[in-house]
């Protein structure tokens, strides 16, 4: 009975005695933790599916004639569908929901000191939309004439009836529109929570950086996702209702359509999207660096402003994805300049991370190891993007594996590592148990090294001129010199896939058998660890805490004189013997 007895159930919050059972059930159903967990598990499923597809892609690259387990030998049609679905699944169904849906829904209310997200019903609605979008995506896999195989960029006319008869693309568009609706709802909820549900005393500059990252992401989602959804709807109109908005050339009956319009709409969303997929991770890295270096983050406000500057710039750089479409040289130059400008706030952000941990005594616990790996991988991916910002160099690398390696490192690998760091960090908070440190560290470090191997080698292939989206990359002895690189990339990818079993095993073991966690295992001061009791009750905080200080109060000046520990809770009142802070301090 001891094991069963240890299984924790959420203790119900104090309820008015007259509350009927249905109301109780409703409140449980609307709890952000429950909704967040549903997001987490669904996104884990998507991650597994997307990851297996990545393995299949790399299998194909080693030998296009080989038979892939469970899939057989891939036809060009199946292979193109494979990389299309991999992109869609990973971006819209795995990384995005893991960061915003799962992390945002699960931890944001705890970070700001709220009992729930601002709009619990909208939160549940967004989950339903997400699940519906997963349904549409899966339905698309079984569509007549095959799933969408246009690449995740869905450029018309390839994605219109001209290039994609059958209903695969229509299902994919439906999935994107539903998914976008879900993300917009989550984002509205996150913003509303940040604006309206902060605990008393929780000023904006006392928010953990993770909360800033989530807020910025929400802003980007709300600004730019509707553009993608509008583009998707217009494309749907072209496909199903006889429109010709994006169709030109031999298939057009009217002279007014323009395929480029879709590219503008797509990238207007598509570039901010890469920041959508990394901003929450940036915030988390900033927080974890501070917590585990036992220091306030270096120049908190500059980090927040740098993230804000990147958010602003992200909407003004999108046409660097379109340097090859023949825009005017003035436009190209403007977009190139703005793109290069993004490195300035990015450098400030990165340097602030470095200054936070430099010369500190860093506690290399698994969340910190994950954050370091995420920052490292992000830095390596970030620098290879510089050459894609200048037109001359971009034109030599456009559509090559250099681009693929670059964006996988920044918004794929780095984001996933941050997700793993977040899981290691908040696992005790939500389960009451600790993950196994050794296995977690082994998984994180190995994953980071393999990520760099896989996508670093892709840079080499791209540098040698190898293009992406090749059914047979070495067809007719092309790029023979790059063959070892291709094979090496694939083998590293297989190992990377297998390496994730460590995480699966550790996660499952920790969930069931992990050692019990104390209240504040990482000794940090943020509200979720210091103001909410250990089995997390239904509404998080027995009483809403009054916040007195920032989230990273590790400096000597932040602590009461004679403090025996190096941290203090955000809402913690110093012991009466100490001098009471007169006005809450700055």
């Amino acid at each position, binding site marked *: 009975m001891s094991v069963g007895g240890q299984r924790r159930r959420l203790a119900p919050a104090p309820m008015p005695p007259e509350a009927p059972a249905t109301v109780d059930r409703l409140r449980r159903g609307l709890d952000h933790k429950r909704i967040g967990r549903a997001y987490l598990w669904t996104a884990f499923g998507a991650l597994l599916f997307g990851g297996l597809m990545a393995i299949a892609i790399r299998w194909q690259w080693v030998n296009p004639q080989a038979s892939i387990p469970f899939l057989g030998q891939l*036809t060009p049609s199946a292979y193109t569908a494979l990389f299309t679905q991999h992109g869609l699944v990973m971006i819209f169904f795995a990384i995005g929901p893991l960061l915003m849906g799962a992390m945002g829904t699960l931890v944001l209310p705890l970070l700001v000191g709220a009992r729930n997200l601002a709009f619990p019903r909208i939160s549940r609605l967004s989950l339903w939309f997400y699940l519906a979008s997963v349904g549409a995506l899966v339905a698309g896999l079984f569509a007549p004439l095959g799933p969408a195989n246009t690449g995740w960029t869905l450029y018309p006319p390839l994605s219109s009836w001209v290039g994609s008869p059958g209903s695969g693309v229509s299902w994919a568009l439906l999935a994107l529109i539903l998914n976008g609706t879900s993300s917009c709802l989550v984002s509205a909820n996150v913003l509303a929570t940040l604006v309206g549900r902060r605990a008393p005393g929780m000023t904006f500059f006392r928010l953990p950086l993770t909360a800033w990252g989530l807020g910025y992401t929400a802003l980007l989602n709300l600004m730019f996702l509707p553009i993608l959804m509008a583009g998707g709807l217009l494309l749907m109109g072209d496909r199903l209702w006889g429109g010709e908005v994006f169709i030109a050339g031999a298939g057009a009956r009217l002279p007014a359509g323009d395929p480029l319009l879709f590219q503008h709409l797509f990238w207007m969303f598509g570039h901010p999207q890469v920041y959508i997929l990394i901003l929450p991770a940036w915030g988390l890295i900033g927080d974890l660096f501070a917590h585990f270096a036992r*220091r*306030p983050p270096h120049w908190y406000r500059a980090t927040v402003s740098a993230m804000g500057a990147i958010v602003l710039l992200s909407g003004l750089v999108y046409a660097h994805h379109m340097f090859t479409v023949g825009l005017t040289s003035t436009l190209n130059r403007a977009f190139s300049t703005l793109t290069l400008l993004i490195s300035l706030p990015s450098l400030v952000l990165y340097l602030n991370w470095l*200054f936070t941990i430099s010369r500190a005594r860093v506690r290399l616990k698994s969340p910190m190891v994950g954050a370091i790996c995420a920052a490292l991988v992000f830095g390596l991916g*970030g620098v290879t993007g510089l050459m894609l910002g200048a037109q001359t160099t971009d034109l030599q690398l456009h559509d090559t594996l250099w681009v693929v390696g670059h964006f996988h490192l920044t918004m794929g690998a780095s984001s996933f590592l941050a997700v793993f760091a977040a899981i290691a960090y908040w696992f005790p908070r939500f389960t009451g148990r600790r993950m196994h440190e050794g296995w977690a560290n082994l998984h994180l470090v190995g994953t980071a090294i393999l990520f760099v191997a896989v996508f670093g080698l892709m840079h080499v292939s791209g540098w040698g001129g190898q293009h992406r*989206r090749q059914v047979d990359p070495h067809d007719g002895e092309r790029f023979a010199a790059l063959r070892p690189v291709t094979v090496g990339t694939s083998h590293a990818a297989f190992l990377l896939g297998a390496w994730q079993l460590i995480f699966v095993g550790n996660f499952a073991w920790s969930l069931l058998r992990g050692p019990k966690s104390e209240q504040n295992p990482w000794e940090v001061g943020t509200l979720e660890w210091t103001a909410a009791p250990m089995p997390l009750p239904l509404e998080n905080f027995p009483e809403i805490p009054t916040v007195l200080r920032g989230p990273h109060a590790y400096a000597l000046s932040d602590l009461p004189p004679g403090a025996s520990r190096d941290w203090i809770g955000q809402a913690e009142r110093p012991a009466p013997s100490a001098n009471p802070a007169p006005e809450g301090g700055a």
Partner: protein
Amino acid sequence: MSSEVPGLRWRVGRLAGLLLLAGCGGAPPIADASRHGHLTDRLMADGLWLSLALGVVASLWLLAAAFGWLPHQARVASADTRRSRWAVGVLALVAFLIVDGHLFLGDLRVRQALARAREDQQHPPIRVQVNAQRWSFLFRHPGIDGRFNTADDVVTVNALRVPVGRRLELQLGASDVVHGLRIPALRIQTDAIPGRITRLSALPEQEGSWELHCSQHCGVAHYRMRGTLEVVPAERYEAWLRAESERAMHREDPDDPHRNWGWTWRP
């Protein structure tokens, strides 16, 4: 007490960084057959070195800080001082100016050089229209009369034949979906988009046969959509064009739907 060890580790780290740089530096290993390709190549090499240097410095710093290879600081009121903030600002600005500035100015210089090269021409350029379609490139030469869409146009499939040392100007269209034309040996790439005309130009300077291929995903056989650029001596080109042009006039089939895809050359 630990001042020796971090110093040693730093030296090892620096050495590893230099090795990495030395191993990876240089322009892409793709043959260059154009007069101006070296400008692009130099910027590519510079960009790679600068990016790698930035990446290596950032990564080593991160690891050194994480593993405590930097000398520890005593616990202070705050490590976040006026001086350290200045350091962040200055370092960010310096790195930005060096790396991005070099790419920006280099890009500007290459673009200007290419534009100038397009302007000054001793000979009229060789003009070719390209129609990209799934999954081949059609190349239309204007024939002897020098005008497009006339009966003497020479149309080739997947083989672009041009004379050496003459400026090549391409105008591209696509009839079905978005394609791209990349000719790595000439360091050029652009998309071919239904409903509009895009342009490329280069000056092939080395005789030989070079690959060209589609650089935008255009469907299941995208990976097979490629052809050759044949750079031949000027006399051979003239002779070939004359012969093909005359043949084209004799073979003219007014009912051929592919006959008239050309367009009046856009200025």
